[in-house]
């Protein structure tokens, strides 16, 4: 797909994930034992043949740059095209950009100098494995100015959506709502958009000239409502996980225990999700270990019990420790006889022997990176 370029927004919703995104971008939030959220957006693009990708960052992006690096795991370390980090320009009078629209304007040269006809824009909060070729082809066939990827069954009247749309059977959007707790009649936007590059440049430039900054409201909805633009909704049929709050992140992590979700995200035959390699040894299961329905990455030493949990790379689980419905990130150490339930341990947390921690499914207990309990 040499006619399409990609852009990924690394900083979205970071305030709603509390301590988990306090010192990292949404894009670098660890997920599923060995991944970061951005691995999905990046792999979707490269699996679809997109070879020119910009990553828009705002702050706390060290962990992101450390993870993605030159993009070599995605074969993006190219002479031409490849990966570009679009870090913010401080804009004199108003400092950093306020919204995605201003961020795109900061990076406008990236788009002006590009050669591709189409742009796929993606957030990093929604995890899915999608063939973007199909989405772009659908966009072209629809004759629309903007295509949004949408998912059924997400809007429930309670969850606030960045953008929700109503669409007819052909995908023609008939209503758009922004930052709204839309009811079931709306389709939830997955934060993935397709438009022509020249259209994007024109709309961004004109919107910023009017001091607008909100991408969904001031570009997509404005064009739809005020300029009569045609907006097309692409209904995604596969697994889509919206990790927009701590509770959602927690519940969506445990959804990996469901084979349909697991195989939907990690299809063995194609759509591989790539990530950065850490040369860990295979995980060791001790004689007394009991691991029931868990996702386990490499490099773990498991002597205790774990049930319905996700164990990231390099976790140590002491003898007689009991971990239930918890997310244990990279290199955590859980002491002998410790008991955890509904807990998220960020990286490098140490739980002392015999300690007991308990959260609930709606309010999982989050322990900050590097804490010693």
């Amino acid at each position, binding site marked *: 797909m040499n006619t399409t370029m990609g852009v990924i927004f690394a900083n979205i919703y970071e305030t709603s994930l509390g301590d988990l995104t306090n010192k990292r971008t949404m894009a670098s939030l660890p997920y599923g034992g060995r991944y970061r959220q951005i691995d999905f957006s990046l792999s979707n693009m490269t699996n679809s043949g997109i070879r020119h990708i910009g990553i828009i960052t705002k702050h706390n992006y060290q962990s992101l740059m450390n993870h993605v690096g030159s993009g070599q795991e995605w074969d993006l370390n190219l002479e031409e095209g490849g990966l570009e980090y679009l870090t913010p320009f401080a804009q004199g009078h108003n400092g950093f950009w306020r919204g995605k629209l201003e961020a795109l304007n900061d990076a406008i040269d990236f788009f002006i100098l590009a050669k591709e006809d189409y742009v796929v824009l993606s957030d990093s909060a929604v995890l899915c494995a999608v063939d973007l070729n199909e989405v772009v082809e659908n966009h072209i066939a629809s004759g629309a100015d903007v295509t949004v990827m949408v998912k059924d069954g997400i809007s429930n009247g309670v969850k606030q959506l960045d953008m929700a749309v109503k669409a007819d059977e052909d995908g023609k959007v008939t209503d758009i709502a922004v930052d709204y707790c839309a009811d079931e009649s709306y389709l939830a936007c997955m934060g993935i958009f397709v438009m022509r590059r020249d259209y994007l440049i024109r709309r961004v430039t004109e919107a910023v000239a009017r001091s607008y900054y909100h991408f969904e409201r001031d570009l997509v909805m404005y064009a739809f409502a005020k300029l009569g633009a045609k907006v097309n909704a692409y209904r995604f049929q596969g697994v889509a996980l919206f990790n927009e709050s701590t509770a959602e992140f927690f519940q969506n992590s445990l959804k990996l225990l469901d084979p349909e979700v697991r195989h939907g995200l990690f299809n063995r035959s194609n759509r591989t999700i790539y990530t950065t390699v850490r040369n860990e*040894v295979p995980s060791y*299961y*001790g*004689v007394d270990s009991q*691991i029931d329905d868990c*996702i386990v990455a490499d490099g773990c030493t498991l002597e205790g019990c774990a049930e319905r949990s996700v164990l*990231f790379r390099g976790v140590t689980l002491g003898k007689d420790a009991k971990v239930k419905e918890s997310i244990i990130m990279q290199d955590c150490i859980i002491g002998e006889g410790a008991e955890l339930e509904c807990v998220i341990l960020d990286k490098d947390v140490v739980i002392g022997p015999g300690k007991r921690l308990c959260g609930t499914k709606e309010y999982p207990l989050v322990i900050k990176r590097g804490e010693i309990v």
Partner: protein
Amino acid sequence: MNFQKKQCVAMLLAGGQGSRLMVLTENTAKPAVPFGGKYRIIDFPLSNCVNSGIDTVGILTQYQPLELNEYIGNGQPWHLNRSHGGVQVLPPYARSKKSEWYKGTANAIYQNIPFIERYDPDYVLILSGDHIYKMDYAAMLRYHEQQGSDCTIAVRTVPIEEASRFGIMNTNEDGSIYEFEEKPKKPKSTNASMGIYIFNWKVLREFLIADEEDPKSSNDFGKNIIPALLESGHKLYAYEFQGYWKDVGTISSLWEANMELLGTEPEFDLSDASGNRIYARNYAMPSSFIAKESKNENCLVAEGCEIYGNICHSVISNGCIIESGAIVEDSVIMPNVRIEAGAIVRHAIVGEDCVISRGAVVGGSFGPGEEKSISVIGKGKVIPANEAVKPGEIR
């Protein structure tokens, strides 16, 4: 062209067929045989090179090189994708005068004299692609320099009753070698050669050329070059190595070496924090899923697996599926194997991409002290449902 000089170039002999590994090396070179759940044998010497600061490695290939070539690629997993040096695969090639296959280990290096000369090295390190160990070659090189040696050979102490199976270096008190005996009937010492040599390049070059001119020579380091060096009065030293080392050239030693990774204090600790990391080409596979109905005792499981069955004292590699009710004991399961419901695998090595169908039985159990004969299933084989593969049988 004027190249930057390298102090030491490593030459890794990876061209052997490894026929004692039977079906496991039918379509692949021995160094590319999977090991320890996510590694291949060649990862060990390659990682040792990088961890010892050697950044120029020639890999001499000849037998079934395709899989090995792809695995090595540009050397990036071992940080050997360098603009100068790095890893280079060296197959035999046609020349204007005489073209031939690698006739022996020494001939393989002889044919690549032009490669080595490009880096103008002081020393050349010769390695084999069939040993499992972690070693700091830099320490060996320092020893070589301190002794003012022409050739230093890494040795390890073996029990005297086993010494007649090895090449034995008989040394003086200062570590200098006065005699080399290949598989001696009556061994005088217990210093077994590990097949790891450091040569002063100028000396080696001279002897390689001389050896090539001798039509009776079998062009082998152990048989020809080392004896010739000794005879001519060059200084040879033995460098004693203390750590774990295993030649995995046979089915039983390959199986044993895998088993020695297991336990809370394994004989060979891959994750040993003080030791150096072993690098491998990683395939993008999701983390493993371990089901409630499974039971895992004293085993290593790599990523990309789905485990529903029972595993005891085994190594399970990337991308394996062990179905419900299957039993795997005392076995090595190589990458992307499917063991179907109710199948039983005991004391076996199952090659890559195999399928052990429902109810099939591979291998058997052995009492304590009884000699274990290992069953082997070659790469990509499908064992039909309810079929039995006898202990020690090779498919």
